[in-house]
């Protein structure tokens, strides 16, 4: 019986497993091998260099800066888009017909090709003809040279990241909210509980699974971010927006250092893995 069970289980898993092995696990292990060479991706010869790439990596200032930039980007974009998405969905819940229009507006960036959106944002951020700075100047606020300023470039690409991501959170939260049991709220109304308290003690706890979902998908998206930063700043100025995927891409495909790029990818993978496991451990301990 057990045997049979296992066989059925494996047959069910097989399609996903075959694809996983063929198109993720195998190339991933292969990339580990590349990370131990000084291969440039063009030359027929792949020279074995041991862990030299990894040793270089830990002395590389660019790598450290890139880690910090990636962390800031991932945390802010995920957190802000989740919170804003929740608030907007909450506000939309109380409206009738007009919510359709709002939802469409918030969702439009999600279906816009990132490459196209980035190109538009590049001009919106322009210090001369950009609508953002013209607007800021009109109300006598300081108008930064967004993409050229080491302090403002990261906020700028974060804004675009949130813009692109927000609609997903809104839609998922809106759906979550629409399925909440109305009975709890009616009971709370009878008890004279205020609007904010209802959100604090009813909605937020009930929405926890949705929040987890939005956070996980947001994290996966944000930590891999590449497209719009590639177009907006290519990682500059002075590395202030040089996220990991971008550094990996530049090292591998622009500087012909595929071995080094693979070492970056592996290090990033191991770091996220360790962080996630630590977080699991912490959560488990708290739950006990």
């Amino acid at each position: 019986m057990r045997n049979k069970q296992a066989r059925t289980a494996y047959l069910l898993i097989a399609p996903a497993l075959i694809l996983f092995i063929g198109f993720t696990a195998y190339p991933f292990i292969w990339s580990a091998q590349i990370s131990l060479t000084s291969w440039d991706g063009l030359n027929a010869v792949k020279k074995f260099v041991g862990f030299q790439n990894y040793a270089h990596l830990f002395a590389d200032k660019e790598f450290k800066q890139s880690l910090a930039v990636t962390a800031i980007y991932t945390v802010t974009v995920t957190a802000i888009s989740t919170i804003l998405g929740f608030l907007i969905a909450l506000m939309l819940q109380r409206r009738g017909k007009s919510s359709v229009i709002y939802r469409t507006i918030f969702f439009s960036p999600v279906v816009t090709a990132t490459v196209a959106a980035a190109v538009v944002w590049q001009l919106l951020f322009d210090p001369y003809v950009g609508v953002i700075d013209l607007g800021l100047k009109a109300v006598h606020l300081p108008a930064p040279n967004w993409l050229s300023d080491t302090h403002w470039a990261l906020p700028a690409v974060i804004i675009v990241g949130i813009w692109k991501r927000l609609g997903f959170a809104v839609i998922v939260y809106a759906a979550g909210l629409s399925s909440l049991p109305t009975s709890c709220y009616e009971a709370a109304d009878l008890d004279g509980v205020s609007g904010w308290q209802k959100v604090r003690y009813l909605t937020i706890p009930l929405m926890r699974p949705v929040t987890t979902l939005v956070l996980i998908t947001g994290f996966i998206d944000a930590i891999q971010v590449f497209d719009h930063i590639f177009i907006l700043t290519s990682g500059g100025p002075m590395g202030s927006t040089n996220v990991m995927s971008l550094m990996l891409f530049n090292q591998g495909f622009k500087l012909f250092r595929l071995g080094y790029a693979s070492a970056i990818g592996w290090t990033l993978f191991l770091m996220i893995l360790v962080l996630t496991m630590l977080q699991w451990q912490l959560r488990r301990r708290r739950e006990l």
Partner: protein
Amino acid sequence: MKRSHIRLASILSLAVFATVSLGAGSAIAANKKAVKPVTIQFWNYWDGGNGQALNVLIAEFNKKNKDVIVKPVTFPWGDLLPKLQTAIASGTTPAVAATDIAWMANMNQSGKLVDLGAALGGIKKATAGIYPSLLTYGTYKGKIQSLPASTNNLALFYNKDLFRKAGLNPNKPPKTWAEMRTDAMAISALGNGIQGMEIYVQPGEGLTWQFQPYLWQTGAGFLNKTNTAPTFNSAAGKTALQYLVDLINVDHAATAGQWGAFDKGQAGMRIDGSWMVGGYRDNAPFEFGTAMLPIPDGGVHATNMGGEQIMAFKGKPATQAAAVKFIKWFTSAPIQARWDVATNFMPISDTVANSNVLLKHIADEPALKAFINQQKYAYARPAIATYPAVSDAFSKALEPAFYGTVSVTDALANADAAVRKALSGK
């Protein structure tokens, strides 16, 4: 229970079979097409007007040559290299490609390029008439592995409207660094964030390629003759970098930031290539002029050489022959002359330069004159495999100097160390 297993297994295997046959089917289809005539792909990054000009020429070639169909495929400039890299690594190279000369050292090493000298009946015949300086990029271990498809260089563009507004003579562009500086200051004095001179400060080959002419003009140079050590960390090198840094941080006639102010009519001057002439004529919201690059006191004329090399990749004999046929046609003088007329690229040989079509075009387009006159002062970037890494290291070390966070002396010293490291391949 058992039956469900069998059904499950059969569905899964069906799915796998469908998947495999889908792939195989298309492979067979591709093979069938290749029988007659030979269809070859030509990868390049000539977009927009250049791409349209290319399409016209290729359509003619396809019409004339019944045995070959050339399919041009255009990728964005920044994406062509990764594409070629993956293609070379996995053996899916196109028949023909045209790439930036700055990548040539790396392409040459790939071992996948066709020996064009041999294929075209000897090096002499293959390269007849082409300027020798252009051949350095295609030469590898005594073989010719690619031919120049176009060449160009950098000159000074200036906004005549802004010159007028600033009280400068719009027909008298600066000739020296000192004049360029006073003109830039006069224009930036117009206010409203208008820059006198737009300087490229984003790290990468863009910064290096724009800054190298200043190094050559002062005599500092970039690398030594054998391309084994940097030479820019010298008094002359400091003069060059200091000049631009002062324009930004002392004279406030330029801003360290993103590239593109000149296009929008927000900068008085900029260094750029001849290909921009057509674009500005059609699209710029201002009147523009061009001039040879200004030179420093006691300096020499110098500009940077740009362009593309065209190459064939090793493959089936029929494909390779078709590729060589196309390259021979594309680099021939009559086609090159029409290509230059359409794109405002510079001629690759005297035959092209002196052709009637091109002479007439230059007479019609006075903005091209500066580029033509300058072509003989064009320096080639080092044709070494470590060049991309060298350029990247160099530009990253210089970037903070433009932002004023690192002194000129320190930036050049850092660049020196970083370039030495990159040259050593580490």
